[in-house]
């Protein structure tokens, strides 16, 4: 992977056309990107693409196997599974992106701040990071959800997003901090301080842009994590609420009850989760190799 990035023609492509350069250097990553884009398009245009209303009950179609009318079958309420998977992409990508964005941004800022000030601030922030890191991810998210409950606003559960972003923060803070330490050592940071700029100005304008590469890598990687976490929480009945379509939710409760009679109820939503996470991982990995061959998690 990183070997090919050193090739001359690829480097040339990379300068002239970053998108094509990425595709040539990272075919696997490009494949991941395509899957992500298809999912995003499905999510955005769900009401056009999806054949049915995701929440409408149709007793006549209860537990229908895959057919012309219902390509992926129907669930116990006769709701079309393809439709629910398409709308589920909306849920997964929204929650995945927002949680990862929130977690990586807040965590990243903490990391940069920690690196910039060093000394006592660094020590305190790192202790705090240690504390939050000591909670297993799912356990932390589960307790947070159980504690704060659900607050859906325009169909998006803000509390769920918060619960998923909290375990991401310390992890992002850790990685960004180590990248920012290198930036901190650059002479221009000290120059900026001497120039009388405020701390926040230096952090946001001088340091943050220089850790953008690891930030983007983390952002993609944690979207995958967030999607998985949302699916797990929904599976446990603590995530998205019925009748909202969400992949993890489609696997929970009733569907496990219909294992044998209607395997399509568990097969397709699980495939959707796996494919989405797979695509983000593939893309994230390649992005890492491409943006910064030296950077390793």
């Amino acid at each position: 992977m990183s070997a090919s990035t050193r090739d001359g023609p690829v480097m040339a492509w990379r300068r002239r056309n970053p998108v094509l350069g990425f595709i040539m250097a990272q075919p696997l990553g490009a494949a991941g990107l395509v899957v992500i884009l298809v999912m995003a398009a499905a999510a955005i245009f769900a009401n056009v693409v999806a054949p049915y209303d995701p929440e409408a009950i149709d007793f006549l179609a209860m537990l229908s196997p895959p057919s012309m009318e219902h390509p992926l079958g129907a669930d116990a309420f006769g709701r079309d599974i393809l439709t629910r998977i398409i709308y589920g992409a909306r849920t997964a990508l929204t929650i995945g992106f927002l949680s990862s964005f929130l977690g990586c941004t807040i965590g990243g800022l903490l990391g940069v701040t920690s690196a910039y000030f060093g000394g006592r601030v660094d020590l305190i922030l790192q202790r705090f990071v240690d504390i939050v890191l000591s909670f297993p991810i799912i356990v932390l998210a589960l307790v947070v959800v159980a504690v704060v409950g659900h607050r859906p606003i325009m169909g998006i559960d803000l509390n769920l997003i918060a619960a998923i972003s909290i375990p991401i923060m310390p992890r992002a803070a850790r990685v960004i901090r180590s990248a920012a330490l290198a930036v901190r050592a650059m002479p221009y940071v000290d120059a900026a301080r001497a120039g009388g700029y405020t701390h926040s100005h230096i952090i946001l304008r001088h340091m943050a842009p220089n850790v953008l590469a690891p930030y983007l890598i983390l952002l993609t990687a944690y979207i995958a994590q967030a999607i998985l976490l949302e699916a797990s929480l929904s599976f446990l009945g603590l995530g998205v609420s019925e009748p909202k379509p969400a992949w993890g939710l489609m696997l929970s409760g009733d569907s496990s009850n219909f294992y044998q009679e209607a395997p399509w109820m568990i097969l397709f939503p699980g495939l959707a989760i796996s494919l989405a996470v797979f695509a983000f991982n593939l893309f994230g990995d390649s992005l890492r190799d491409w943006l910064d061959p030296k950077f390793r998690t």
Partner: protein
Amino acid sequence: MTDHINSRNFSRRTALALPALGFSALSLPGHARAQGDGPPRRGGTLTYAVAAEPPTYDLHATSTFAVMHRVAPHYSTLLRYEAHNYPNVVGDVAESWTAADDRLSYTFKLHSNIRFHDGTPLTSEDVKASYDRLRAPPEGVVSNRLPSFQQIAAIETPDPLTVVFRMKAVDASIMDTFSSPWNSIFSAARLRADPNFPARNVMGSGPFRFVEHVAGSHWAGERFDGYFRDGHPYLDGFRAITMSPSAMVNALSGRQIMAEFRGFTPNERDRIVRALGEDSLVQESSWMLHMILTFNTKQKPFDDARVRRALSLAIDRWGGSQNLSRISQLGQVGGLVRPGSSWSATPEEMQKWPGYGRDMVANRAEAKRLLREAGHENLTFTLLDRNHQPYVTAGIFLIDQWRQIGVRVEHQQAELSAWYAAQGSGNFSALVDSFTQFSDDPTNVLVKYISSDRAEINVSGSTDRELDRLFDQQASTVDPVARKALVRQFETRLFDESYAVPILWWQRIVVMNRRVRGWTMAPTHMIYQDLGDVWLSA
């Protein structure tokens, strides 16, 4: 009663549950036939599943089956329901009894040969101590059904084998209180030493002695040789294994357990029957358990009866019953008392209630009209629900029904504690609730719907003195015909106001291994659990 334990044929279900998978339709043995064929056989250990861990061992303090299904075999009660003949009442520790003509006193003669598991005899003192604990619990003791003992004025014990209950007023449901499986008889001596003794210890006079309880794993009992009914129990012992409902299906299918006594979903039933074939035994009944849609009548716009009625009108109960009963434990359409019970309205009577008419087009039009009149055409609100089945099924169904009259509803699925907390603080708009009792007696059931200042169990916050008046009147009416008429009046009044309305009643589907004999099916999962008559065929 038994006519409600139906034996449906399997073909309809098979057609529904096994589309396209090519399972060959089994000729279905499953359903209940005469039980107890042949003379009972002694010996063997009954293994069965219980879905939850018990929060206490004290039957007086709790109302969950998680305690009943483990603890019942260890205790006796004053009276009990006759096996295979619900709701007829027979004696348990009482050999015979008489009621005074004015129904203000009841005298019980006890069996003389009853011993507790520690060898001490059970006397009238023990009955009195247990009922005193129930009606006036000492400091630190919980009595879960306190109101049902309200009318008992005094308990006297003229001799060791005679107990007299003196009443303050006529209580039409007192026989159910005496037969209640929750009102177990504890040892007076043990209670004197520690009023909370039963919370952590098991020492009764029932057919089985307590052996052990391993948290999260199992509860075991063994035959009590000193049990006062000759020849009983038949079993050497029992083992109640803790497992989740989905695991039960596999365990029963794999012959790792022999029974589960609460109930399965139709689909779980089919899976077990398919696995066990000839060895499965299915028994079905309606269930004294119903799903309720409760509005917060203190919150706008649910303080407006038109809005509440409109939302109730929009629910296609008959269609829901027919279809949801195929995928969940939701079952029949009913009013406030169990459909099919002697107190219940006929389907024709029901169809006159708002939301029970069969013409859904008309219902929805009327619902829309009511909302328009109330000025809430584009109503949106949040429905509070539990995150359990079949609550979630009911919630999904309701939201879809309301979507069809243009009402948008968010579904909020809460953990149990948050669900209770919201009820307590009145911090909800509408909620999916349920109510269960161990008997069909109207007093036991209607209490859920009287004014909330009289019954905390009514969480709608409503105050309706007319309902209270009808409730009190039926509670002291002994003549069943007159009482039934009062129940009808109560229902009519309630549906006009719709503070809280039934959604659907549950169906009880018990599936067990055919080897289990002598057990009695009933419309409640709280009775017939002492296992004294149960035996295992070879």
